[in-house]
């Protein structure tokens, strides 16, 4: 901590939050909101006279609310920087602190929120985790029974500089406890959080050993389901606890009851080794509560193009091979923001993140993929009449449509989602590597034989294609009647692709992409959703059963969802039957033909369409 505070190359900006990120790898423009402390750091000498006169007391979050602090405070004695802060939510502006500060004049109530703009090459997200509040688990009585604590509250009580100078008392009567019990997996591995929080077994063992050292006669039990000690030296640590006489009772307690007279607690559990229900009377119960994602992690993630998995923690690019990378090039994740981690693991990830970042920072220039869009100036209608739809579709300001002139793309700003391409009314925009002709060629290749028996699936690169990969990695079986065509973003999905697929006989078409909040291109999914909403109606009018086209949003981690959707689609396809599909397609052909008319204006695409018709004639 102190090292970071003194490092000549590290600028510590505390009491500050990320406001906005623009730009791309190597060239991020970042706005940081610096909240006012109302104390001038250069003038404050940390004497604390202001604290003595402040009349306001509020719960101290650093001590998990076990103590109070003043409205003017430093969170803890070793804080870096050691500068006081006025909590304006609590302050009553009596200005006694100004008086106490006297000639130092370090207090300044006129401070305003400040926006700092930074040019940044790479960003590392290390926002950590939150502790689950166990109040909703009513049967454990947290919040109602004074002697039920969370592990972090105990952590503060055991700290020599904490509220009790490191001594453990029963909060109900400040008496020394004779018997304490820990309960593991509170809010982990259950219907609240499916995952294992990972480090609770170890910190519980640690706290039990600290208690043993301080109180050799204290009776200590740990109620657990499994003890997980996978890292170096951990199992040995567990053995040490057993040697020290800590009792390990396998069983997840069903309930804690309280004696209303003396606030003693009764734990109702099964002792699995005995196979019997037991009741244990103790002085203090400590709940080993789950780690959970920060409540604002999605908001922050969407600013950075970092998505969250089903657990709410940030998603890495690849679970094994790219654990630090995110879908946004130049943005990395480290520590518990990606999932619960202990200290050694977090430190290792910090080093890994700095190494990943320095790959970019150490090069004078960085190569980015050229999957960008460009405008055919001859086709752009903005010359003839005001259009500019493309400009409204781009979340990066990479495409500009000046009045009376053709639109143009700023290559370095374009992220290559293809949303402008799909929404251009004149078909004047092309996305490199995902051109109309390439995609139409794929549609025709896949549907060349027995098209009515196939489900054509359009996916985006980041999420739904990733979901299909996850289904594969997890070997989640589904029927083999689907075929995937990948684009970078669902925003690229032109309705004409869907009409063309049905025109040449597809059994079903499924369009997919990320969840709305996860779009790698900020708004691409939103435009896809809007654009595709009308498709079922249009298809129905043409004679195609609406259930033959569907739209599904899923994240890269949702292999289960992908597999389920494929199973359901396959069942739908079978229930409709090939004969009906053929009939419907035949009936819909003229209408679909009209809808893909502009494809014929592209000579390359027209060639594919023509080639296919020739095959039809031959058949």
């Amino acid at each position, binding site marked *: *901590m102190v090292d*970071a505070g003194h*490092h*000549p190359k590290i*600028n510590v*900006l*505390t009491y*500050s*939050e990320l406001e906005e990120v623009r730009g*791309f*790898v*190597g*060239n991020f423009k970042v706005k940081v909101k610096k909240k006012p402390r109302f104390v001038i750091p250069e003038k404050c000498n940390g004497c604390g006279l202001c604290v003595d006169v402040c009349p306001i007391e509020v719960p101290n979050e650093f001590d998990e609310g076990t103590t109070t602090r003043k409205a003017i405070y*430093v969170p*803890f004695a*070793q*804080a870096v920087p050691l500068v006081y*802060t006025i909590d304006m939510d609590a302050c009553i502006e009596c200005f006694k602190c100004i008086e106490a500060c006297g000639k130092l004049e370090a207090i300044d109530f006129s401070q305003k929120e400040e926006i700092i703009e*930074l040019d940044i*090459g*790479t*960003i*590392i997200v*290390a926002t*950590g985790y939150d502790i689950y509040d166990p109040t909703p688990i009513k049967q454990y009585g947290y919040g109602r029974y004074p002697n039920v604590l969370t592990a972090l509250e105990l952590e503060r009580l055991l700290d020599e500089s904490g509220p009790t100078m490191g001594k453990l008392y029963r909060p109900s009567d400040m008496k020394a406890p004779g018997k304490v019990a820990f309960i593991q997996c509170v809010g982990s591995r259950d219907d609240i959080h499916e995952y294992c929080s990972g480090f609770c077994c*170890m*910190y519980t063992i*640690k706290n039990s050993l600290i208690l043993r050292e301080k109180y050799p006669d204290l009776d200590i039990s740990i109620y657990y389901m499994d003890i997980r000690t996978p890292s170096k*030296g951990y199992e*040995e640590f567990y053995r040490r606890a057993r040697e020290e006489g800590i009792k390990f009772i396998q069983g997840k307690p069903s309930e804690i009851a309280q004696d209303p007279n003396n606030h003693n607690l009764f734990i109702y559990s099964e002792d699995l080794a005995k196979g019997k229900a037991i009741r244990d009377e103790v002085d203090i119960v400590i709940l080993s509560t789950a780690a959970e994602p920060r409540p604002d992690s999605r908001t922050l993630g969407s600013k950075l193009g970092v998505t969250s998995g089903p657990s709410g923690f940030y998603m890495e690019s*690849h679970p094994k091979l790219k654990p630090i990378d995110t879908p946004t090039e130049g943005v990395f994740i*480290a*520590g518990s923001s990606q999932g619960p981690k*202990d200290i050694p693991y977090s*430190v290792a*990830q*910090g*080093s890994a993140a700095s190494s990943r970042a*320095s790959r*970019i*920072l*150490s090069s004078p*220039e960085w190569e980015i*993929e*050229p999957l960008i869009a460009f405008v055919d100036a001859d086709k752009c209608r903005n010359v003839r009449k005001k259009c500019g739809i493309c400009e409204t579709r781009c979340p990066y300001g990479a495409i500009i449509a000046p009045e009376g002139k053709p639109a143009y793309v700023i290559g*370095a700003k374009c992220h290559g989602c293809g949303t402008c391409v799909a929404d251009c009314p004149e078909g004047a925009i092309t996305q490199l590597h995902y*051109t109309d*002709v390439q995609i139409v060629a794929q549609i025709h*290749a*896949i549907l060349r034989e027995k098209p009515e028996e*196939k489900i054509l699936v359009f996916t985006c690169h980041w999420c739904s294609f990733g979901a*299909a*990969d996850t*289904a*594969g*990695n997890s070997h989640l079986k*589904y*029927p083999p009647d689907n075929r*995937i065509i990948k684009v970078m973003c669902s925003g690229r999905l032109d309705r004409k692709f869907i009409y063309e697929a049905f025109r040449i006989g597809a059994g079903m078409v499924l369009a997919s992409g990320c969840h709305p909040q996860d779009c790698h291109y900020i708004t691409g999914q939103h435009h896809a959703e809007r654009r595709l909403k009308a498709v079922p109606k249009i298809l129905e009018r043409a004679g195609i059963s609406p259930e033959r086209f569907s739209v599904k949003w899923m994240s890269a981690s949702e292999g289960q969802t992908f597999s389920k959707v494929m199973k359901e689609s396959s069942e739908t396809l079978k229930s409709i039957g090939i004969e009906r599909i053929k009939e419907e397609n035949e009936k819909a052909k003229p209408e679909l033909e009209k809808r893909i008319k502009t494809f014929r204006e592209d000579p*390359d695409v027209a060639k594919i369409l023509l080639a296919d018709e020739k095959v039809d004639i031959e058949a």
Partner: protein
Amino acid sequence: MEEDLRIGVFVCHCGSNIAGVIDPKKLAERASELPGVVVAKDHGYACSDPGQVLIKDSIKEYNLNRVVVSACSPRLHEPTFRVCVYEAGLNPYLMEMANIREHCTWVHPDYPEEAFEKAFDLIRSAVAKARYLAPLETIKVPVTNKALVIGAGIAGISTALDLGDMGYETYLIEKEPSIGGRMAQLDKTFPTMDCSI
């Protein structure tokens, strides 16, 4: 355009991951009949050195101008094969992948025949796209060699210290009044019982 095309298709066994369900040799045979394909070969592990040598040698021997690698997910090995064809003198964007592992053999082990047809369709799709691929040049952008670390807990502090030691200007932002995060709240840490601050 069509007459100039010289496409090579390479079907990976991935050990038994692909070959355990479908026959890559047969798949290559069928792929060789697709228009524009001049050669189709199979290999035990396309991503391995010998696999890449096979691709590179074939590019030279058959004067290939498009390559289709039918193997695992492009999210895994697209960079590998792009570099591979580049080293053989081809523009990296003239390579297209067909995912016949994650999207096929791993999820359809119970339907080997249908899985074969699906794999062939995926190759046919990749070949079709390959016909219309164009060489692309990567965009070079300048790099500001400054880093931003969001969150000053143990992971963020470690990152910032390493980056700072490497000599990069690093901004470490923290929403609380002090750095330290959760770690600062802990008295001692496992398994060595040392102090956390």
